[in-house]
């Protein structure tokens, strides 16, 4: 079964930065550009710039000389930071966009799940949308007829199938859309971050479905930021960065190298200049820091130790009712918990005057598991609007405690590692 289904050789894709502006360019701009371009080129040459170098900063290569082969039945994960070229690769393989250079060969019918719900029309009923969406994804009418009941049952919306989808909740729409897409039976399935939607139980169902697809011997290419899902589903992982393959190999290995690369800890950050600090017109950060309850950010944090996550920020709008919300993410990409000052609105429940504030979240000992943690922060205004968010403000290691009796080998399983009360009673002496 080691047939090559996807063969990619020297694939590159160039984008012009500012393509957004290009999209809305007017005849006038195009005309004046066409008229002045030769003059600017000549001027550039006179100033001694090579034409290529002069235009260089306007161009980015989303993919640079990618070569790879994928065999039948392989489930391959693609990881990388935002803008690494993952989606571009899928878009080229699915023929949505053309490569600038290079060559690729795909054997077999290909199905793409680039975004759930593409092509749903709000005015049409669920039933009509199943047919429309199915045919957009490349299913034949007979195929949709055969699977219709299955699709509806999987989405759990039997009762509403003849209701226009504009009356559906967003969760229902997502379920129906994923259900249609997952009943596609191509030889090759390209999936881009579809699991970021839906509630936990539905996500589990989706993962199960993808697992089925893989077991049926079909080839899957799976782009995701969810490293847990990647490790669970994929045997092979390709790590892209800045359009190039960094590593291509066995999934556990690549994922752990990837994590090591991006997980240098950052336990304190300071921004002295208010104008360049992260934030916006309403709020700007001055300092963020993780440190043990009685120590500084240089001290280690162990699993037993209570510690603080602290923020100093400027509030720039008078009487603003803002709240900071933090999320702690483990190295497996699981959110250990999120927290907001519910009990005490950030400043004794009063709206904040303009000024510099410090708030701290107190995290007790014996809660987190050992390993790397990232802190995500969101600033919410009037309990409704997220006015600022950042994914990588702080990261820190939680170490195993040396005074802990080591009664186990390796780590303890779980996103968190609380010490819980147990009771044992003798009920009947045998």
């Amino acid at each position, binding site marked *: 079964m080691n047939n090559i289904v996807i063969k990619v050789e020297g694939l590159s894709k160039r984008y012009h930065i500012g393509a957004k502006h290009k999209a809305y360019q007017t005849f006038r701009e195009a005309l004046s550009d066409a008229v002045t371009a030769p003059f600017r080129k000549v001027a550039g040459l006179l100033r001694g710039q090579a034409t290529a170098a002069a235009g260089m900063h306007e161009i980015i290569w989303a993919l640079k000389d990618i070569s790879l082969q994928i065999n039948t039945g392989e489930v391959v994960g693609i990881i990388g930071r935002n803008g690494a070229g993952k989606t571009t690769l899928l878009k080229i393989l699915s023929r949505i966009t053309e490569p600038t250079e290079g060559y690729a060969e795909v054997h077999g019918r290909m199905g793409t799940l680039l975004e759930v719900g593409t092509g749903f029309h709000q005015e049409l009923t669920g039933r*009509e949308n199943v047919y429309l969406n199915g045919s957009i994804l490349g299913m034949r009418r007979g195929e949709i007829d055969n699977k219709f009941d299955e699709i509806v049952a999987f989405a759990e919306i039997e009762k509403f199938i003849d209701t226009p989808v504009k009356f559906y909740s967003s969760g229902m729409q997502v379920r129906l859309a994923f259900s249609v897409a997952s009943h596609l039976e191509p030889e090759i399935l390209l999936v881009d971050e579809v699991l970021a939607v839906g509630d936990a139980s539905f996500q589990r169902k989706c993962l199960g479905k993808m697992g089925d697809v893989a077991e049926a011997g079909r080839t899957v290419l799976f782009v995701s930021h969810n490293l847990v899902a990647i490790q669970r589903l994929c045997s092979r992982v390709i790590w892209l960065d800045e359009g190039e393959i960094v590593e291509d190999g066995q999934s556990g290995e690549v994922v752990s190298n990837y994590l090591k690369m991006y997980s240098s800890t950052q336990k304190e950050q300071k921004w002295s200049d208010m104008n360049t600090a992260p934030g916006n017109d309403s709020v700007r950060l001055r300092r963020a820091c993780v440190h043990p309850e009685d120590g500084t950010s240089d001290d280690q944090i162990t699993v037993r130790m209570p510690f603080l996550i602290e923020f100093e920020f400027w509030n720039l709008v008078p009487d603003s009712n803002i709240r900071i919300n933090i999320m702690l993410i483990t190295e497996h990409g699981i959110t250990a918990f999120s927290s907001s000052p519910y009990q005490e609105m950030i400043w004794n429940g009063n709206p904040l005057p303009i000024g510099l504030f410090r708030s701290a979240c107190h995290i007790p000992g014996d809660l987190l598991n050992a390993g790397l943690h990232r802190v995500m922060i969101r600033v919410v205004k009037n309990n409704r609007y997220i006015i600022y968010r950042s994914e990588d403000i702080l990261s820190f290691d939680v170490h195993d405690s040396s005074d802990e009796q080591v009664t186990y080998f390796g780590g303890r399983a779980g996103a968190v590692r609380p010490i819980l009360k147990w009771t044992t009673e003798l009920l009947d002496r045998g």
Partner: protein
Amino acid sequence: MNRRNSTTVDLPTIIIKPSRGWVSLKLREVWEYHELLYFLTWRDIKVRYKQTVLGAAWAIIQPFFTMVVFSLFFGRLAKIPSDGVPYPIFAYAALVPWTFFSQGITQSANSLVGSANLIKKVYFPRLVIPIATILSGVVDFVLAFIVLLLMMFYYGISPTVNVLFLPLLLLLALVTALGTGLWLSAMNVQFRDIRYTVPFLAQFWMFASPIAYPSSLLSEPWRTLYGINPMVGVVEGFRWALLKTDTAPGAIIIVSSLAALVLLFSGAFYFRRMEKTFADVV
């Protein structure tokens, strides 16, 4: 069923590489996606008059009231000749195919931009989108045409055997609309000016076609040359086939058909050439 078995036996191979210069039309692929074409057309028909009070009546109101206005100003006041038939039906017989055409180019011009999220997320031959938009207009055409038949009954005009040519004349209107729509939709992806140009273009084109006046105002050979505007052939053809206007427009229709084919093929090639940039630019 047959088809799916065969795909599992010998897998289709897709070659992906940058295309250069002029590319083939890949009409066979468009045919392979005919079910998608069907569903998109059906969707456009289905949602066209959703949440409107008058619904499909709009398909009749537009040409009908234009006819009323034309009859008052051009027929009554300006006394424009109408090839020997009552002016209202003279104008309406032209407005029915004209409305089909102008709606077709307006909607297809915006069709690609309107389907941006489809284009960015799924592969299919992009030609399907403007084609579906134009085809969905046929339903409106049929509704307006029924009113035309009622008017003929009212005026006591009975159709002749020339009516058999009507499907071909409709096809000519369709080809003209599609050719224009392909140009406009592909250009609209790059230049959003098109969106603002189309209403103006449609209006200009209407007065450049013999809707409110007969082409017989022109003498030969100018009248035949006038057929370079394919809508001249369509409009005069409709009048000839239905109302038996005495000037058989044979030569005009030949000129118009050739012009329409040039429009269609140039539009299709331009569209295919620009197609590779759609997903990146739209």
